Structure formats: C-alpha cells, structure tokens
C-alpha cells in the first residue's frame, strides 16, 4: 500500500479538475492506497457544507463525504478559506482546516505527490 497526497487548486465550478481529483482519490483508495487531499486556492469551495446539487454544476460533497468515511484525510487551507468567507463552522464533518505547513509536512512521508488544477 502506498500513500498518495493530492494538492487541489481548482474551483468547484468552472472546470472538472476537482471532480477528477475525487475520482482519482476513489480509484487509488479502491486499490488499497492511503490518500491525503489538500484543498487550497479556489478548491476551498469544498469547505462549505450543505451544497445543493444541480445537474448543471459539479457536485462533489456526497463523493467527498463517502471518501472521508473510507479514511481519506482531507484538509483545507485555513487562510484561503477565511479569505473567501468560509469559516470554521461551515466545514463539512470530517474535513480539517490547517495552514500550508500541514501540506508541506505531508510531502515527507507520501510516496507520490500530485498537483491538480489552478486557474
């Protein structure tokens, strides 16, 4: 079993990169790998619970909660979130908030690091 850390920087709406990140995490976990996910920049849009699903927009909350339930560690950049008005009480259950040093620290033990997205 290997450890994969994915840094995601894309917004929820506007590209499919965030959708892809969750699907990749799901596939890696299905193969028995441990997955950590770091949400930074516009990807912190995931740090708001109660998102409503519309067929015209990406909706990843359900998939994210499922992956958290299976053991994926997911952490959102605290400063990026606060700058966008997403506060501690908005965070979905199981998601952590931390500063960027959390992500840097993950690079030590992880076997592979992937960066996805960015505008």
């Amino acid at each position, binding site marked *: 079993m290997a450890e994969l850390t994915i840094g995601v920087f894309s917004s929820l709406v506007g590209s499919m990169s965030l959708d892809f990140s969750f699907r990749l995490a799901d596939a890696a976990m299905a193969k028995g790998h441990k997955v950590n996910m770091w949400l930074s920049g516009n990807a912190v849009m995931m740090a708001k619970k109660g998102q409503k699903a519309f067929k015209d927009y990406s909706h990843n909350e359900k998939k994210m909660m499922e992956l958290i339930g299976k053991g994926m560690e997911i952490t959102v950049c605290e400063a990026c979130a606060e700058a966008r008005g997403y506060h501690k009480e908005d965070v979905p259950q199981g998601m952590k908030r931390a500063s960027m*040093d959390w992500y*840097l*620290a993950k690079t*030590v033990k*992880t076997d592979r690091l992937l960066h996805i997205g*960015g*505008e």
Partner: protein
Amino acid sequence: MAAVRLLFIVQRPPYKSENPRLALTHALASQTAEIYMDDGDSVVPTVVFVGDGVLNAVKSQQAMKTYGVTSTESHIKGCLMTDVPIWVCKEDMERLGLKEDQIVSDAEDMGGAEISTKFVSFADIQKEMESVKHLLFF
C-alpha cells in the same frame, strides 16, 4: 529522519491567477512545517520561475499601490530572507527581453538576505527536477 527536497515550478504570470502567490506562500510554509513532522524530518524547498512565470520576478511591482495587496516581489524577498532559494530561467528571461538588473535579486530593503536570486539555464532546472523528491507545479 529525512530532509525532503521539493521543487516549486512557477509557470504562470503574476496577478492573472493566484497560483504564483500560492507557490511562494507554500514554499515559505516549509519554515513551520516541522510542527507536523517527526523529529529530524524537514522539507527543503527551491522555487524556480520558468516560462511566463519569470514575469513574477520583475522588480518594482506596485501591487499594494494598485490592488491593495502584497506583491509577488515581496513574497520572493520573503523567501530569500528565509533562505528559500529562488531560481529564474535564463532562456525564458531572454525570450521576454528581461535583463538580470530588472529581476528581484536580493532583499536589501527588507533587511538583507544571505542568499540572492540565481539565474540558471533550463538544463540546470531539469537536473534539479530529476533529483528532488517531489515537483510542485503552479
């Protein structure tokens, strides 16, 4: 116990997206990452500007005056002040008509840094890409 080398590769121009700023703030976060690590572990970042990303390193940015936000230049100086190496691709500077004296090379106005910006060839960057543990593209 490990010192993990990371290469932050900045390809995007400044202010058009958040990515270059995120590269620099993440690199700076290496200074405090030890609180999440086992004893003896550390991360050693280098930031390299390539392609249109070299525009991030142009001197005399007026972001505070224009947008009311800190400049990419100030983050580059912050990196130099904390011994995070800053590299700029020579070939891409030439392509954009930039000379070394137009690039942020020190942090004198912030109290001085022990290191200065290095102007490197793409061959050197490629060598570094092959030797680090992780590449972080921004």
